[in-house]
């Protein structure tokens, strides 16, 4: 055994963490994409975003019983519930002047606090167990290692979701309106598209993405008392690292965070607490000029 370890096996122990990092990163991407939408298009810093993810997660824990039908049901219910919560948020935010970020942040934080409390009251204070479909419960062989089948399928599904998202934003009329609203909301309003409708739509879409991530990612970042905070923090770091408006940047940032959280921890366990911090500082330092130019008051 020891004799073989010098060869290709030196990277062998890190294959599984690296693969896990991809799954983790894609999950964070789907969750963060919703936040990017709300922030980039509707100009709302939605601090309740983590709660929307938790709605999906708790739905998955409650509905999943190991069958495929339950997965479909959980996905449908979770996405609808989180999207409905997004619409509710949009409704609550209507009287708040747009561009008043402090008030928006406080309002969405209040909703997150109350919603999180309701979720814990409804589903109990313990972290619930999540049952994946029986066919995916086992493990498969990847490069000579056993790897959870669900995560492998999740990587495929999340990649499809990311591709679908990209095509929607790039190719459809709704996507064009969204991009136009980022650039020039006044002009979009002049074209006869109600900004209120765009805002409600974007918050609903952001909620749906968070809900989908919550259901599909429940076996990876499971529902629990800390879920909302964790997801919000990871999404915020993704937004800070990846910038706004570029989906490729968001994807790269999310994958980097996934690798840091899994591969980085496996490689440098002693430095694990600081890795996220260090990554954020490093990327911002490299991009400082660009960021300063982009974010400076113009």
């Amino acid at each position, binding site marked *: 055994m020891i004799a073989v370890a010098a060869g290709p096996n030196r990277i062998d122990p890190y294959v599984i963490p690296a693969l896990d990092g991809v799954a983790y990163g894609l999950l964070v991407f789907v969750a963060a994409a919703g936040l990017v939408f709300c922030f980039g298009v509707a100009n709302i810093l939605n601090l309740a975003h983590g709660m929307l993810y938790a709605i999906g997660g708790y739905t998955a824990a409650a509905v999943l019983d190991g069958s495929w039908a339950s997965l479909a049901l959980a996905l449908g219910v979770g996405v609808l519930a989180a999207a409905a919560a997004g619409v509710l948020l949009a409704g609550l935010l209507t009287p708040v002047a747009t*561009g008043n970020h402090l008030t928006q942040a406080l309002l969405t934080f*209040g909703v997150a606090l109350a919603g999180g409390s309701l979720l814990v009251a409804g589903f109990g204070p313990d972290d619930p167990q999540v049952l994946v479909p029986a066919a995916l419960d086992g493990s498969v062989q990847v490069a000579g290692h056993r790897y959870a089948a669900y995560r492998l399928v999740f990587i495929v599904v999340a990649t499809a979701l990311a591709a679908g998202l990209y095509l929607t934003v790039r190719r459809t009329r709704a996507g064009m309106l969204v991009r136009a609203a980022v650039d020039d909301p006044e002009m979009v309003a002049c074209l006869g598209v109600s900004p209120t409708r765009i805002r409600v739509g974007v918050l609903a879409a952001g909620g749906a993405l968070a809900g989908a991530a919550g259901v599909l990612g429940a076996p990876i970042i499971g529902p629990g008392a800390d879920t909302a905070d964790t997801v919000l923090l990871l999404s915020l770091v993704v937004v800070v690292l990846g910038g706004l408006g570029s989906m490729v940047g968001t994807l790269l940032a999310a994958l980097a965070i996934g690798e840091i959280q899994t591969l980085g921890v496996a490689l440098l366990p002693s430095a694990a607490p600081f890795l996220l911090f260090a990554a954020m500082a490093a990327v911002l330092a490299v991009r400082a000029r660009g960021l300063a130019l982009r*974010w400076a008051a113009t």
Partner: protein
Amino acid sequence: MRDEVLRRVRAAVATLVLAGLLVAPWVVDDYTAAILARTLALGLVGVSVALLTGVAGMPTLGQTAPYAAGAYASAVLGSQVSDVGVVQVAVAALAGATLAAVTLPLVVPARGVIVLMITLAIGELVVTVLGRWRSVTGGTDGLAGIAGVRPFWGLPVLATDQARYLYTLVVVATLVGAVLLLLRTRAGVLLRAGRDDEMRLRASGHRVPLYLSGAHVAAGAIAGAAGSLLVVAQQYISPADFGFDTSALLLLGVVIGGTASVGGALVGAALVIAVRDWLFGVLPGHAPLVLGALFVATVYLLPTGVTRARRPRPVPAPRPPDVAPTRDRDATPELRV
């Protein structure tokens, strides 16, 4: 009209709260005095939030980061250096200022809601580090059994909750007084000018980012000093004291007090924290729900509190329901990458 009423209500509440804080140690029991001392420390963090949010125009959700740095520095380093409170406050303020200085490159180039986002990320990351760096911080279990302090060389160690409360009160009053004096000088004027019209100030040759950096470091030092007071008041600290909830509550308190008002921030933050502690006492299990509802209600009751304090609006133009979202050009990032 409404503004006038709001102003009077604020003034009356502030007077009541300040008078209450002065007589409190002789009226309330030990437990309440300890809680009040912690509330005062958080009120001081609220002052640093107001300094950044209202005076310098950088809304922050991350002042718990220097607050935590100060608290842990005071508990870990300060107690080894000396048991004199003044020294520990200085160590804590230095730690808070250092953390603020380290995060300067992340915060100062950003404006508006981006600051909110970056500071939130910094605050959360600091809490994560505190929870995982077990060898120094004791992890999520926190640090207990922190030795008592003597306020000044030659004075006895603070043994009762009343004494600790009075010590906290004196330090908070001194620091708030210093901030108020500082804001009356040229520095305060420049900060406010930068908040109101950055381009104009830059055009007249002022280095606005330098002023903002100064404000950020100063706010970090204040929050750090508050951390040392928390250690004295509680004699126990854990990462739970510095969570995201605390930042949001402080921001709410600062908004209630009128963002640009330092005294208002102290009173507002103290009130919000007191309400939270009271709620957790009377409604175990459902306090976050009520607290969240209170957030929403407060936002609706003070719909213009924020904008008015930050930039005076000459005429409240009638806003048709379907106008385009009027973006704050200077507060909104460019969205291209």
